[in-house]
């Protein structure tokens, strides 16, 4: 999966239509980023990368970049 495809999946999960979403976007600034969104993103990461991020560790994630770093750049094309 490329970074852009990953960002696109996050956009789908958060149901963002027009908002600009890029690697520096701070997820916590988005109104749509609630506890259900956290669960959804954890599930997405598990499904696509086979990586389990405990919800407790998710607290440190801010930008999409920080999420990608948590997953590991080596998982991206």
């Amino acid at each position, binding site marked *: 999966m490329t970074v852009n495809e990953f960002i696109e999946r996050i956009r789908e*999960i958060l149901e963002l239509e027009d908002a600009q979403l890029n690697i520096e976007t701070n997820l916590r600034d988005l109104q749509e980023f609630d*506890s*259900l969104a*956290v*669960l*959804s993103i*954890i*599930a*997405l990461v598990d499904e696509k990368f086979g990586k*389990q991020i*405990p*919800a*407790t560790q*998710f*607290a440190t994630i801010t930008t999409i970049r920080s999420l990608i770093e948590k997953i590991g750049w080596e998982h991206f094309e």
Partner: protein
Amino acid sequence: MNNPFCLCNKNIIITGASSGIGRQCAISCSQMGANVILIARNQDRLRETYNRLEAGNHLFYSQDITKYNDLESFISDSVSKVGKISGFVHAAGVERTLPFRMMKPEYYEDLFSINVIAGFEIARIISNKIYLDASGASFVFIASVRGILGQIGNVGYCSSKGALLSGMRAIALELINKKARVNCISPGIIETDMTKKLFENIPESSKEEILKMHPMGFGKPEDVANACIFLLSDAARWVTGTNLIVDGGYSAR
């Protein structure tokens, strides 16, 4: 005086016996005098449960209960070894924490096959008179308060446990003429490996919220096992088609 809760001379099949509620039900039933027939996928953990049983004529089978065509062979094998079946506890269960919008048909299928269909299949096979103790039998399905009350991120688990509750009532009515009683136990959150995993997948704030909903705190596997002993024993002779809620007050509010 005879102990009405005694499980002496009863052969009881228990699924999910390798951990959590299933394991404790197996240990507690053996302590009450039952012969238990354990089934679960993980052989090492199953053996660990087996080693913790009180002495008795116990058996264990390591197999996947969703391979429905293989279920009859372990039941007929155990009947040939220990005699007819007078109890069944379906404690095998899986859960998946996922928002409704992220669910997929195959996730529901996985949850329903273990939580519901395998349990109903084993009960169906046991209810054949060649396997069932003609003097009376008791089937217990471990459901959940989440089969009655909703919980965010739990649609698959909630719906599978709800299916157990409603199916149980229909089965109870059908098996009355075979002297088999059929009931559910609906636990609140019990401290097991499964709930530990659940808590890893939800934010800390949600965990605190769930704890607040249990006025007596979280339960222990023994709390469910003791309820199970009651339903399996002759003390529950006149109890069928019911759901025994064991939740430390969770659903009282």
